[in-house]
């Protein structure tokens, strides 16, 4: 179809101290990315970054970020992301790096991927739990997302197969 096309990067912020993750906000991340692009690609990169770049979503608890990049030059901008070593936010410098999990053409595909990824992560967490209380909580979390899925019949046909595989 005729539209402005862009690429969405689903990235994970990896920090050493997870509690500091909560300090993050989308603005800080956007600034950090822009700074990194400017550093690596100069004015040209900064200019590319000024149009069509935005932080679409940030979850401060899980450290998930959706970045939107113009499709024309997303490879160039993407190449600058590994050079981010810290994010300056709320007067603090948080050392971190961005781990790209998925590249999608629409937000929707990224969201779909994220659902699968998160579910997978939860399942991985379950055996690593140290005590019973934790185990209970994780189990509850898994149940809760499967419960919501149960309500949504429409989604079942889309995601059902994969989830079942992982549960076994």
């Amino acid at each position, binding site marked *: 179809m005729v539209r402005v096309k862009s690429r969405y990067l689903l990235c994970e912020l990896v920090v050493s101290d*997870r*509690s500091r993750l*909560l*300090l*993050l*906000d*989308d*603005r*800080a991340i956007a600034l950090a990315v822009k700074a990194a692009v400017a550093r690596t690609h100069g004015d040209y990169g900064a200019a590319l970054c000024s149009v069509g770049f935005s*932080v679409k*979503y*940030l*979850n*401060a*608890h*899980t450290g*998930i970020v959706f970045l939107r990049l113009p499709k024309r030059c997303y490879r160039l901008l993407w190449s600058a992301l590994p050079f981010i070593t810290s994010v300056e*936010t*709320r*007067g*603090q410098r948080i050392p971190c790096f961005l781990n790209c999990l998925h590249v999608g053409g629409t*937000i*929707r595909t990224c*969201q*779909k991927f*994220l*659902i699968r990824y*998160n*579910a997978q*992560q*939860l399942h991985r*967490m379950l055996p690593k*739990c*140290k005590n019973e*209380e*934790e185990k*209970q*909580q*994780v189990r*509850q*979390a*898994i149940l*809760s*997302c499967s419960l*919501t*899925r149960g309500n*949504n019949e*429409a*989604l079942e046909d*889309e995601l059902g197969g994969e989830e079942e595989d992982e549960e076994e």
Partner: protein
Amino acid sequence: MSTAKVKMREKKMRNQPASVQYPSPPLAGEGSSQNGGDAPVSGGGPGDGPSDIHPSTERPKSSHHRSGWVRGHQKDGGSYAKEMPKYISAGGFARARAAEVSAMLKAVTKTTGSCHVFGALPKHMRRRAMSHNTKRLPCRLRDVANRMREKSLQAGSKKKKEQAKNKSRKARRRHGNLLLEFNRRQRKNIWLETHIWHAKRFHMVKKWGYCLGDRPTYKCYRPCYRAMSTHCLLQDLSYYCCIELQGEEDKLLAALSQLTSKKAGPTFAAALCISGRRQGSVVVYRAGCYPLQPLGPVTFLWRPRTPGTTHRQLWIWAHPTIKQDLLPELQSVCQCHEAVLPPVVPVVTPAEVAPTPEPELKPEKTPEATQTTRTKRKRNCKDASGPPAKKILGDGSRSPTTPVTWRSSSTGIVINDLTMEIVRYRLIGPQSHSVLAETLEAATGCDEMNKSQPSSLWWPEHCKDESKMKLHQQQADIFHILKDIYSTGELPSGTVLGLAVDDPRLTLPTKKVKALPCVKQAQEGDEEKRRELMLRGVPEHCCQSLLWEQSVRDNVTDNKISEQELNRMRSQVLVPGSRLSPTPLQGRVPILLVHQPGKQVGHEMSSWGAGWDLLLPKGWGMAFWVPLVYRGVRISGLNMSLKHSQNKGTPHFPHDYPDCPAGIRLQEEQEAELLDKFKRRPPAKRTNYIKHGCLAPFRCPWQQLAEEWELITREGGEERKRDSQTQTTADSDTVMEEEMTSHAEIAAAKPQSRFTVLRNRKSLRLLSGWCRPTTSKGQRPCRAAGVAPLDSSAMMSFVTEQEMSLVWVRLSLLSKGKPELHAMVCVPTTEDLKLLSNKSDNSGPQEPPHRNHFKSRMKRRKKGSKKAATSSAKTEGEGSDLPSASEPNLTTSAEDAKSSSESSTDLIFGLWPDPLPSITSHCSRVTLGWVTQADFSLSAGCGEALGFVSVAGLVNTLFNQPKEHRGILLLRNPTSLHYRFAKINIEV
């Protein structure tokens, strides 16, 4: 972004997850309660306990703070650190993941974009026209879709639900049911008898309590004009109300003389009219207040005297808007306050009604025919199974118990309201007599056999009387002579002819034919008779008609042969298409023919638009209408009657009587209508009347005009007085005297402060003489010899008499241009007149464009409304320093005073707000008056306008103009800046 766009976006983003972050401390606490059940955690604030580290603050984009994206970088970042949990646990982390998953799930499953239900369907399952036909949707979505569809339907069209038609079309169209439906529909507005005929061909308007045809749906402006000037134009005037007065002649005249004045022309007592040979017309005033409070023009017709009695009968025909004022006035002057209630009659079949052929003196004794029909209708409404519904004849909107007759015990006068009892058709045009002659045939007598036996019908009884038959023969002879006349205009105006005619349906031609005057050479005797008719009119005894008799009218109405019956009889004729040989006895109708005068004033096109009025008993409307139409006449509506009077040079009733209650009402309606039309345009596309210097484009503030001219003349008079005092002493005392009287008059006139329209014959004649040389083209020399020359003293005396009055004038443009409604009549300056004499092709001066002083105020107001909370005191303060007016006449001080009040009232872009500044001196040329009707006159070949000007202003102008240019004024349309020269005509 507009609110609609915001709403759209909100709807679109409803399901999209927003960023999850800690925005600001207080909101973070709230976040937990906004969870919306997505996450299982419901907890307190962030600092509750170690297990509850981050009660999911996801979905901050809910009802509390819409801007889910928290912008704005807070500087004091330390405070966040305090609020935030120091460490995280595996359980909390898991919960966060779960919450995120659910949020994403929601986003993924619910499609965005359109809010339609079928958005939920995958693309390959969508089908065309699903929104139209919900059955194309899968079952599970149908309910929702139906609900949505209903909602959108309701929102889209706010019209009320169409009522269920419980009957089939066939049932509805059945005759009885159709009649019931028609009867129901004419309960509010009266239908004329030709209503259905008109409704099929005309644009109908609801006016004055009637449904009237305004103009035909086909294009016929010029054909109608051509018909008026060369052939014949037909109009149904049955909506005019007839009021019947009966009583002794002297008592009637004494009562009616209070309503009129001899100064305004012949009254009810005019000798020609009172004999019954002519129809008269008169302007009626409220009792005893002659120059003030006019009610409107009426026409009247006396019944010819019956020998040996002084009892007279008078019909007053009035416009329906006059009737409501006229009737109480008549009751009060005649002291008729006893309402005679219509007797409750048992339903009788029409044939049983005993006919009373002798002229009756008290018609109110006889049962009314309407009564029977009305009771019938009522009964039919109650039980539909009864006999078929009766067609309403007469006034259907009146309740049967409303009294229509009033009598006075002291004077013996009886007032009878004959509204809708008599059908009145107007034929306009020089050939209308030939149309009548071709359509109508004098009633044939009945043979001996019928004469011998008593009959319930009026005609056989009538035939028994030898003297009556002789009269009928004479009337028929005159009617035959009528055929030989060349043009209708040749007859003396207002001639009346009574007649009894055959049913015109019997001679209905099979094809429409154009009635032409018969050109046969008349014999000597006929020639003599014709000349007699043209000079003297119809002799008095031939004006008698049995239409005056209520009993005969009722009899004729009740015994009309139905169309169906007539067709049946026709089908039984041996030779198809031939005439019914013995004319059925029911088919004799008494009628009255009344001549309508054409153009009487002015010198050119005299007797243009003359014609005949045809008066019929009710019920016979369609029986005469269709045969008339088949004679090739044109039919017109209200619109054409306006043009007719305009071309004829006579004032048309509600439009050209701004001092009558009906005229005032019409003006208000017109203003509201025009203003509404004006407001419907976007402001940028409206005419800016302020810039055009047009103060009142939608109405004419006559009162203010008259007052201003009164003021101007008084000032002028004082100046002149000073001059004359220095020059001549002889003159001064007379002026002084006038000055005194004028002041006294002003003092007296002030409290009532009402303008009047000049209808005094003598004053009009004087004014008309002063306006010359002005027949509209100015070709003829002035021939009025006996007019006093216009000089200072004559002017002064005239003006002081008529200070607050307006005069009705006709203006014809000298060059091109088409005047429009509410065009301004202005005084030309001396330079303008010079221009006129210099160059013949000069079309007229221009008005410099005015400045819109209200523009800034409008803007400010708009701004103010946007801010909504700005102090009103500030705006008022600013309002006082308006840009000063360019014209010296504009009273800025008055505007200042206004400004505070106006800030509350609404300003309409392009219109002056209500307290108007000085009207006369607003433009560069002094305003004299306005135009009430204007168009390109097809008869004169130039633009013609009818309007009113202030008498004082006009006389002043005429006095100041040089002789050769006397009577030349300027005319300017409200939407133009161009003045056009026009000549003024006052014709008496």
